[in-house]
């Protein structure tokens, strides 16, 4: 009796893995196709726009750039100067010092000639107490506002910035990111182009700055990173931004806008209550909540994505830091999906509820668990004597090549669209990374994500420490918020 039941369970699992694998292949192939179409469309459109024409326009909307900073004292001056030099006529830069333990605020006061003001604002979103709002005596820094507050985490700092901001749109960025000079106007375009739907948020393409040469806040020479983990993340970012987000943006199903670089409609952000400070996945959670609100109000809307690489960030190249980052990302995803689980397979939420949400639940959140179960299943088959080595090897090779093929597509898209890595040998290095990734890096990623699941279950939270090596061989250390 038990033997029969066990056999049945094994059979059911077998069918499940088969269907899951089939679904993965089909979905990712569809994503590749859609992203190809969307990328083509965006590149064609870009040919006919002279962004210089609109930089000084009086008709454009105002933008508040919100950059939370925690213990960024060593690099903050350079970063703020870089932000203030962005090319657009109507913007303000709000730096939120989130209770840094270093001398960030003193450095800012000294370097930008700041004075504490009587800035009156409405605390529409509850945050940790604000110690002071600073403005510069120097008119050259007239666009700068510095908010000094008690530590409350990235989401809390952003909420404080939203309360202070006085423009129509808010741009939430990581203070240590490098933005392209014309990034604001490029990100504004989807907001301004749409006439039938309200554009509620726009995400931007992010590039990896490790090993690149940077001058005056701009990447002038692109090189692939030296380490395998760095190179893997280059490929991963290609896949994520040039395949995933492009495709989801085409079907208006984008759920995630990177916390490092995203533009939002301020009025709507306030309506939905700002960032949720109790999750580490605040970027995704905000987008899901905004979409939810729009669906419930039955207002036509769009979350857009700009593929142009407009923001450059340093990625961790040590396993320890990368594992913590992936652990956090997984917890953020789980928390968001748990918070809004009523949207899943709910036709009331349109494509968000019926497609995007189930996709995230099944292929992002649960993928590590399913892969782990697959491992257990294989071991069980070996013990039962039902293991077919021919099938195992064939399936393994199949999935390996599928993964290699997807990554190759992402490199191709990058090559066609931007062609940033032009150094001799860069392409070869990337292809070698693509071939190595499924065997040597993916298993580790799955393990770190499984740990994220475990930490979520155990209620272990926090951001962990992010140690940066600094752009252009300049030593720069910062610590992410705790």
């Amino acid at each position, binding site marked *: 009796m038990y033997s029969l039941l066990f056999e049945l369970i094994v059979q059911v699992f077998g069918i499940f893995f088969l269907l899951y694998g089939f679904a993965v292949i089909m979905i990712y192939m569809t994503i590749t196709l859609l992203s190809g179409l969307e990328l083509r469309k965006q590149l064609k459109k870009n040919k*006919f726009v002279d962004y210089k024409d609109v930089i000084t326009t009086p008709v454009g909307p105002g933008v508040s750039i919100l950059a939370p900073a925690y213990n960024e004292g060593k690099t903050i001056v350079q970063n703020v100067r870089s932000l203030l030099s962005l090319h657009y006529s109507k913007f303000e830069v709000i730096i939120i010092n989130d209770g840094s333990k270093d001398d960030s605020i003193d450095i800012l006061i000294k370097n930008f000639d700041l004075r504490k003001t009587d800035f*009156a604002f409405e605390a529409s979103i509850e945050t940790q107490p604000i110690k002071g709002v600073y403005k510069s005596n120097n008119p050259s820094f007239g666009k700068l506002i510095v908010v000094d507050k008690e530590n409350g985490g990235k989401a809390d700092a952003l909420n404080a910035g939203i309360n202070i901001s006085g423009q129509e749109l808010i741009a939430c960025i990581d203070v240590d990111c490098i933005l392209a000079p014309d990034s604001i106007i490029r990100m504004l375009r989807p907001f301004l182009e749409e006439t039938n739907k309200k554009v509620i948020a726009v995400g931007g393409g992010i590039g990896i700055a490790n090993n690149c040469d940077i001058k005056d806040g701009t990447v002038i020479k692109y090189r692939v990173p030296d380490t395998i983990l760095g190179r893997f993340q280059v490929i991963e970012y290609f896949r994520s931004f040039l395949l995933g987000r492009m495709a989801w943006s085409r079907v208006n199903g984008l759920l995630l806008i990177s916390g490092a670089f995203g533009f939002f409609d301020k009025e709507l952000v306030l309506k939905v209550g700002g960032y949720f400070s109790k999750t580490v996945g605040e970027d995704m959670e905000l987008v899901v909540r905004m979409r939810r609100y729009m669906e419930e109000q039955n207002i036509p809307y769009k979350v857009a994505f700009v593929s142009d690489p407009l923001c450059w960030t340093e990625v961790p190249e040590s396993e320890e830091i990368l594992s913590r980052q992936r652990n956090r990302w997984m917890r953020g995803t789980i928390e968001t999906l748990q918070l809004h689980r009523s949207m899943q397979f709910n036709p009331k939420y349109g494509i968000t509820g019926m497609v995007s949400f189930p996709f995230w639940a099944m292929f992002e959140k649960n993928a590590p668990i399913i892969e782990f179960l697959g491992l257990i299943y294989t071991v069980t088959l070996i013990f039962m004597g039902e293991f077919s080595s021919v099938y195992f090897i064939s399936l393994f090779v199949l999935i390996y090549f*599928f993964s290699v*093929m997807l990554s190759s597509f992402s490199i191709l898209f990058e*090559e066609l669209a931007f062609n940033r890595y032009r150094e001799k040998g860069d392409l070869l290095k990337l292809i070698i990374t693509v071939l190595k990734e499924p065997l040597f890096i993916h298993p580790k990623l799955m393990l770190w994500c499984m740990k994220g699941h475990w930490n979520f279950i155990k209620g272990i939270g926090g951001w962990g420490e992010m140690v940066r090596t600094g752009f252009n061989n300049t030593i720069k250390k910062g610590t992410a918020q705790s």
Partner: protein
Amino acid sequence: MIKKVCYFIVFLSLGLVNTSEAFQEKDSLVTTTFLKKVGRVESMTFKVSKNDDQTNSLPGEVAKEFNDFNQALSYRDSLLLTGFGDAAIKFYIFDEEKAFDGVKEYISIIKTNDLFIPETEIMEAKNEILLAANKLDFKAYYTLRSRIFNDIKFMILMGILTLFIITFLVLLFFLTFVRSKNRNKANRIKLYQSIVADPLSNLLFTYELEEIQAMDYQQIKGIFNTEYFEESLFKDTLIKEIIYVNKNLKGDFKDKLKEIYLILKLNNFSLKKLKSKNWEDQASGIVELHEMNIKEAVPQLTPLLQSKVFLVRTNAVRAYLHLSPSKDLKFLADQDFPLSRWQQMSLYRVIKQISKNEQVKVINLLDSDNPSIRVFGIKLVRLLGRMDRISELSKMYPIATLAEKVEILITFKSLNAFTELDLTHRAFLGPEPKLSVLAAELMGVIGDESSADLLFEKLKQKGNSFELLKSMMVSLFSLDKQKFETVVEQQDNEQLYKLRAHIKDSLLAYV
């Protein structure tokens, strides 16, 4: 074969068995053949004994019982040869003696019920399988191969895998190809740019406009002196270079560049693009004609004004505005498609340029049936400083949409429309919060004592939003500082205290 066996048996019985007595009825050909064929039967035995049916008549050491008929037969024959002439074989089923017919019947029953298969038949079947097997072309890996080719699931798997591998290889090839193609194209463009640069600057800086005008196609082509002249990429590069220089130079140089463009018949190349089915070609043709100020292109541009492709339409409208002799904006007012803010930004640049020399008829936009065009019209009144259209805006306010009302109030503020104070007061007291905020701000610019009173009274009321409070306080501060202080002191509202401090802080003047 059977015949041979029969003859042989007959021969043996006649030749080797010396007496006729030795042959018994049980030795008949039918009996022996049948029983030999049957072989061993589990429940049947054969006893060799005396022929007169007396059991155990043979001496005890001689009589024997057998399970196999052949053995019994051999034994009986050996007894006959040794002198026991009456030795005979008897048949027993379950230890009960039976006649040959009874044996036959029993065998038939157990065969029918599949309880017994004669050994000879088993042997025959085995021989048939062996014969069939011998015909097969046996190979050592037979099992694996048959498994691969007979398993449809495995075949599908292998098919998909092959597809992935092929796709990966094709991708690799394509990547290399694209990389090399891009590099080649970039190198060619670089080469063409280097070819174009010197002759172009030579033409611009050495020759006068009249001299260029006097030249013909061949002469200018001769200056460029290149065999690439007929190539599309060369023409495109040349046009781009001309446009680039045209954007950065002024006056006489612009005229020279236009002459070069026309003499080289590059305008025909650009016009040809307008007829293309590819929207990219259409858009690039429009941009080229626009940048080179080719007014003759207006008729060809007209059908593209209502193009379904956003970029073609946007560029066509821009180009038409710039090139068309008529500046009444009527064609824009007649647009069916909603005008996006991006388009408005782009059109404003062109209109701003035009309005430096001649007045555009913004009024036509205000009368448009398209709400987005009307909004753009209101914005233009503001951006172009058209004070003469304030009364028009005032007239359209009561029937305007919310978006239009917002723009009208912003425009009144921007143009210091002192005549519109009553309208502003009405908007301030109206039910729409957004308009109240804008009207409060406007009152700070165009307001009078009555406005200050209105603000003062409203500030005393509860339930005002922070945004409205701020705009009212800012306006009241500019209209009547005493009332401003009074209302803060009277109301004892924390928000008002904060706003007062904010407004008085010089660093926050524009925040």
